Each structure stands twice: as structure tokens, then as C-alpha cells.
């Protein structure tokens, strides 16, 4: 999960220390918030549940992680969409 994000930001051509710094930064965002991988997994499956009401997504490729800048922590989700559902088939949300 982190590897994926850092690849986006780090790019393969950039000096390896940039990759190291970015990976370190992201791993520490997780360490410091003390959110367990189990909670992230639970969040991920809940997200899937909600989003599939509206769109067809590639569940296996879904990425959810934390990021931060300055003093803010952000939840970053990368959710590949395979197709839209017709509005007619849209389920009531309730979520």
C-alpha cells in the first residue's frame, strides 16, 4: 500500500533518497496515528460497500492510506472505477 503511493510520488528516476524519505514519511504518518492495519482494512471494506452502490470498482486494486502535510492528516483513497451504474439500479444509500 505504502509502496504504491511512494512510487507515485517518488518516481523511479528520482534519487533513491527521495524514495526513502517519502516512504519514511508515509510509514511514520501511520505509526504516529496508531491506527492498526485491521482498522484500515475495516475502513476499506466499508468504503467498498458504500461505493459499489454507485459504481463498479476494481476492489482488488483499491488503495486506502493516510498522508499528511504540515499539521494535517489526510485519508487518501485510490479507487479505480470500472464502470458507472445506471441511476435506475442505484441502491438507496442509508450509509
Amino acid at each position, binding site marked *: 500500500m505504502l509502496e504504491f503511493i511512494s512510487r507515485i510520488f517518488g518516481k523511479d528516476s*528520482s*534519487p*533513491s*533518497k*527521495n524514495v*526513502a*524519505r517519502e*516512504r*519514511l*514519511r508515509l*510509514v*511514520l504518518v501511520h*505509526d*504516529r496515528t496508531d491506527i492498526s492495519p485491521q482498522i484500515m482494512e475495516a475502513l476499506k471494506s466499508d468504503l467498498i460497500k458504500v461505493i459499489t452502490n454507485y459504481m463498479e470498482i476494481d476492489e482488488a486494486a483499491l488503495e486506502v492510506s493516510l498522508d499528511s502535510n504540515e499539521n494535517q492528516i489526510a485519508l487518501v483513497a485510490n479507487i479505480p472505477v470500472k464502470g458507472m451504474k445506471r441511476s435506475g439500479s442505484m441502491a438507496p444509500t442509508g450509509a
Partner: protein
Amino acid sequence: MSEVIVVTSGKGGVGKTTTTANLGTGLAAAGHKVVLVDADIGLRNLDVVMGLENRIVYDITNVTDGQIPYKKALIKDKRYDGLYLLPAAQTKDKTAVSPEQMRELCDELRQEFEYVIIDCPAGIEQGFKNAIAGADRAVVVTTPEVSAVRDADRIIGLLEANELREPKLIVNRLRYNMVKAGDMMSIDDIIDILAIELLGVVPEDEMVVITTNRGETVVQDDKSRSGQAYRNIVRRIKGEQVPLMDLQEGGFLTRLRKFMGLK
């Protein structure tokens, strides 16, 4: 006035024992009365790094168990006035000492010594808790690698949770040429991420290995860069303001020649 300083890191093999030995030797060479405490129980190392391994009779657990007074377990380093070692036990495990016992021991030692320097084991378990129990301040050692800095971050959090505020950082084994080539995190990168005050930077240096092979410390080697780095750190611990040394490899003349295109 006396101070109890614990040298920690989280990750193993980053240079805690080397740092403890060099700070102790450097402070003693500067005329201070120093005791080094090996709190890595079960993995005794500081004695061999100091070259004192053949003189051990008693260890720290004999003292904390109340069998002998601490003075009986101390090994005097004959090369430096005022330098002593309290060795770890080799055949026991970390539970052989409790944080309460460590606190009592440190309070006793501070009556006699200006600096009590504790070599902490790797990890965040019992051994770590013992080692920090009696300390006034902490030094965190890391190397410029993702895993080591991550562990340092965890240790900093735990130190602060245990009332050891404002620990200071030593970055060890820095390779300037790799930093310059963009293949190693720089001091700024690390300080930025950890948000902690820098105590010093020690370059990667084969003289560390060579002196350690001989049971000596590099801080006593006038010519080596790592020795210079440790001498600067010693002065900072004493409260002096010492600028960071030039981390470029090669002496001034080599660099001048390079600059002038002679090499």
C-alpha cells in the same frame, strides 16, 4: 552536578554501544568522572568494545540483587583517570533487573560520578524500560536508513511518554558521498521528519572498526573524522556550542586540489 544519560535507538546495530564507549572515553579524557553502565543484559558488549572484557568479576545483577556494593563490581579503565565500567550480566535475561532497581542504582551512582552513561539494549521491551528508568536525559542514535529512523521515531515517542523530554539525536554512519549523489537521506531530511534536536553526526569510518578491534575508542584518534565527530559531541554534551563539522570526505588539502583541478 551529575547527569544520567541513556543511549538508545530502537533498532539494533546502529551504534549505541560504540557511542556509549566514545562518549564515556571522551568525557573522561576531558577530566570528568564517568561510569558506563551496560544495561544490555544477556548480550554483554560494552566490555569488549572498551577492551575490558578480561577483568570482569561481578556484574550489574550482583549489585541490583544486593549481593555486593556497586563499587565492588566497577572495573576501572586504567588508561583514563575517572573512567569506570559496570558490566552487564551475560548469563541472565532482561527480567533479572527491574526499573525500580535501576532507578536506585542510578541514584547511587550519581553521588559519585559526574556522568552516568547507560548503554540501552535494542527493542522497546523490558530491557529498554530498565535502561531508561533512572535517566535524566536520552540520546537517540540512528543511521540514515528508513528502518532505523522509523524505530528512532517510535523510541522518541516512548521516551517522551516516560518523561524523558527533548531527547537528542546522533546520526551515525553517514556517507557524505552517497548523500551528495542523492542516494542517502541527508541530516536535514532526518531532522525534518523526526523534529528533534541534533546532537551530532558521525561519518561512516573504518577507523571505528579498527579501534574497536583493538578494544580502543576512536574518540582518542586525533586524525580520524569519526573521532573528531565524537569529540564535538562530547563538547556539546558538556554544554558548549560547537558547529557541525565539515562532512565532506578528504582533508582540506585534498579538496583544495580537487577544486583546483589537480586531482
